[in-house]
């Protein structure tokens, strides 16, 4: 199943970044597909990107809300919120585990042999702060002399934007290199920090700073597709604790907002078939190893 997940990650990564004319055009894709919402964190200023980033769009729409309202346009970001809300209701953070290119990059980095460290649970609340403050409040409230707010998360934090868009655009358009300043250096340092951290800890950006992950996490209890714990079968052996890339203790918190439904606990850890994948309460997949509760140690 892990092999399937990797292929899904690669396929979705290519589908959301399938415009490969940029070495010749020297700019980003500008076709109509960009009206489609990327499920994961995928910068729409990436030269290959064929979808829009929901976080970037919502910040831009909220930043330009005053201007839009003055012109009689009611652009509150409802189409963007609706798109990611439907995705969240269907999949929740399964998207982080199966469809986010930046999550995939972090997973690959974590495969580099090194000493591995956990991430304190307290840091996971940081992403909700980024969602509320940097994606909603600051773009809406802090406006410039033209009455426009700025995309604070994209501008000051997003390492995916630096990796997928900032660096490639500097490579494609050498004249942009003259405009590099503190803003870029700040974002470059953030990128290097998260990429280095990803070698030593599993998915540090997803767990501590990703506002999109924070949004999808809000659906942990109500999403259609999720993992289910059969408490009658669970022996509390805690095997699921050791394989989770997000530090979830599944037997203690089956609806944990950090669960990205990578299925590692179900397929690699649980020997008692206590964990299953379900759609709206209907079992979808259960690993059947011929073990019954009677064979519990």
């Amino acid at each position, binding site marked *: 199943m892990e092999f399937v997940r990797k292929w899904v990650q690669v396929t979705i990564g290519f589908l959301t970044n399938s415009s490969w004319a940029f070495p010749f055009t020297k700019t980003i894709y500008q076709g109509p597909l960009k009206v489609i919402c990327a499920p994961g964190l995928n910068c*729409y200023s990436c030269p290959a990107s064929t979808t829009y980033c929901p976080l970037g769009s919502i910040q831009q729409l909220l930043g330009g809300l005053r201007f839009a309202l003055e012109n009689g346009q009611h652009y509150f970001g*409802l189409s963007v919120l609706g798109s990611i809300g439907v995705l969240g209701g269907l999949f929740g953070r399964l998207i982080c585990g199966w469809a986010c290119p930046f999550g995939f990059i972090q997973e690959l980095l974590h495969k580099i042999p090194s000493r591995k460290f956990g991430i304190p649970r307290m840091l996971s609340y940081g992403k909700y702060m980024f969602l509320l403050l940097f994606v909603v409040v600051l773009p809406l409230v802090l406006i410039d002399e033209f009455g426009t707010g700025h995309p604070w998360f994209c501008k000051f934090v997003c390492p995916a934007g630096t990796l997928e868009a*900032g660096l490639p655009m500097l490579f494609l358009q050498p004249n942009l290199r003259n405009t590099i300043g503190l*803003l870029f250096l700040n974002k470059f340092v953030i990128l290097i920090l998260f990429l280095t951290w990803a070698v030593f800890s599993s998915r540090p950006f997803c767990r501590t700073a990703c506002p999109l992950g924070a949004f999808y996490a809000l659906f942990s209890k*109500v999403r259609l597709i999720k993992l289910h714990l059969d408490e009658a079968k669970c022996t509390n052996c805690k095997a699921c604790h050791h394989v989770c890339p997000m530090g979830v203790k599944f037997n203690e918190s089956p609806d944990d907002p950090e669960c990205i439904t990578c299925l590692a606990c179900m397929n690699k850890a649980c020997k008692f078939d206590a964990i299953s994948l379900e759609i709206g309460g209907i079992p979808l997949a259960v690993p059947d190893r011929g073990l019954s509760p009677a064979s519990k140690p």
Partner: protein
Amino acid sequence: MNPTTRDSRNKRPIRKAPFVVIPAFLLLWLIGVATGEPARVLEQAVQVCLSCIGIG
């Protein structure tokens, strides 16, 4: 998978919450589409936002 196990799983109730949440966000999306928002989103998405990516 033995029959007892299957029976016990079949008794699991259908969760209703996703069937409320998904249509609610679908409605939001439709309202956004009705206001012409996707055209604005597309307009933004086809331009390189230099300050957004830390350049300029």
